[in-house]
């Protein structure tokens, strides 16, 4: 594994750690709007759009909230949605892909020839947008929205794993050790889940890592479009959306830069891990 992969692992660990211990790491309440006493005006005014300082490390946003604490708490949403989506769609994708590859014949024709193609025929993000928009009804609570985001992203995400899994199973089911298991009388399910799947899992790990980057990005995109967890709850996508007014950008560009950079580094980290693992697991690629 190269240096970039280690950087990826380091950033990912920082991200996961931050998300888990968000309450301890955040310096302020993420939704509290801070105010200060203005001498000249003689009254309390909003502490808005302040540049980074010792008190507010990443400055404050247009409503006087602490940007650092909001980013830390936003990590929690990204991580939770990302890991849940990767796990659920991974499990479904692996099972469906394994069935298509192992049983072949009509199963394969139906699943790989038809179902996969249907799901690949939608642009993923568009389908996710539509599903969240339709599921949400009038006033979704934050928990509803998290659930809807996860459902939408799983519906669009499983097919990636299924395709990789199918290819792997097609290859591995012909190996000698599987033939041996079959000769010893192992049932189809036993061949599939005891012998084939554990040996087919490596490229799936790469897929999962890249999918994690995709899920974090998709969650941020949907939040940016107003389909994430409703305000005032902090998510990176919403923060970027709130910071892109011309007034806010001119007076306080840090509002846009910090969440943007954190999002970029997180996506980068999982991409590095995925690419690094791919090279590590497939030495033929290393020479490039």
């Amino acid at each position, binding site marked *: 594994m190269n240096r970039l992969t280690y950087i990826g692992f380091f950033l990912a660990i920082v991200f996961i750690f931050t998300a888990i211990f968000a309450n301890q790491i955040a310096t302020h309440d993420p939704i509290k709007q801070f105010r200060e006493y203005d001498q000249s005006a003689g009254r309390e005014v909003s502490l808005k759009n302040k540049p980074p300082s010792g008190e507010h490390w990443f400055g404050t946003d247009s409503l006087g909230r602490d940007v650092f604490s909001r980013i830390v708490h936003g990590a929690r949403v990204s991580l939770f949605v990302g890991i849940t989506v990767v796990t659920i769609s991974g499990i479904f994708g692996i099972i469906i892909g394994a069935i298509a590859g192992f049983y072949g014949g009509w199963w394969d024709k139906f699943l790989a020839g038809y179902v996969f193609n249907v799901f690949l025929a939608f*642009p993923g993000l*568009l389908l996710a947008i539509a599903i969240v928009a339709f599921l949400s*009804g009038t006033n979704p609570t934050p928990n509803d929205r998290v659930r809807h985001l996860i459902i939408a992203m799983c519906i669009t995400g499983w097919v990636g794993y299924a395709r990789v899994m199918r290819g792997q199973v097609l290859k591995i089911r012909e190996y000698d050790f599987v033939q041996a298991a079959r000769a010893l009388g192992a049932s189809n399910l036993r061949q599939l889940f005891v012998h084939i799947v554990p040996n087919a899992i490596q490229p799936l790990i790469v897929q999962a890592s890249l999918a994690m980057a995709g899920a974090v*990005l998709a969650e941020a*995109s949907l939040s940016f479009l107003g389909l994430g967890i409703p305000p005032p709850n902090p998510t990176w996508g919403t923060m970027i959306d709130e910071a*892109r007014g*011309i007034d806010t950008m001119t007076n306080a560009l840090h509002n846009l830069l910090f969440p943007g950079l954190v999002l*970029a580094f997180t996506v980068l980290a999982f*991409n590095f891990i995925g690419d690094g693992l791919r090279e590590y697991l497939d030495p033929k690629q290393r020479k490039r």
Partner: protein
Amino acid sequence: MNKYKLLNFVKRLGLFVLVIFTVVSLVTILIELVPGDPAIARLGDNATPEQLQAFRNRHNLDVPSFFFSYDSVDGFEWHGVKNRYLDYWKGVLQGDLGISYDTDRPVLDLVIERYPATIKLALAALVIAVFISIPLGVLAGTNKNSLIDNFASFFALMGICLPGFVIGPLLVYFFAVKIPIFSPTGSYYPEDIVLPAITLGAALSAILTRMVRSSVIEELGEDYVRTARAKGLSEKVVIYKHVLKNGLIPVVTILGLQLGVLLAGAIITEKIFNWRGVGTLLLDGINTRDHRLVQGVVLIISVTYILANSFTDMVYRWLDPRIRIN
């Protein structure tokens, strides 16, 4: 056209029709996901029963949603052919996508008004991506591990990890606020397309640069390159006439697959720049809970994507005769 080719063509056409059929069906069913009564979801709790009834009549909401239904109270019930699913299909085949809840205009008209702007934006992004990625990828691939290669890698990395909704506002800040060359939002003047197209094309140019680079490196190791060089052809001819022609084959596939990403990304880009295309139409539909409109937009974008993919597939086969045989 020989028998084998014809069979292959019929097979692929059959799959295409099947996929279109399923996509339309799925989109039709999407609207049933809306929790509760769509009339109440749209008009709110304060609407009078008469208003609700008028709304249901206008939008064909009081007929059953499918051929049959099942719930714990009534059990299994057969509704016959008078159902919303079949009605929507009849409409689609006649070019009628229903009436927008919010504006009371035909959905198809609304989409057609906005459609050219989105296609224009997507094509502009595509052109920008191709014009950046091919020269950069070739330079990086032919000068492996040089300064330009490292620059190309860095550029590609930035394009992949910085999403459009971070790049877009930054472009607005630098090229519309700090240095006012372009207007920050809107689509009134021809040059207004520049910033949105760069925003939308950034990710694609990053992916393509990587593709072109690795493709060029791979092709440079092939025997025909040595032959071409041995014939005394100039390096320029070797690279642009021989290597690039073969190296672009995988790039074309990626281009086709990325078109979906481009169309979906257009929704985000259009929001940033207030670009009046189908993306902003979709978001307006979501905000006003105009589910009929959202349904229509999703349908049109998906069908566009499927058509574009099939087209790419054809180009791909034409470019690489090896695929035609398999």
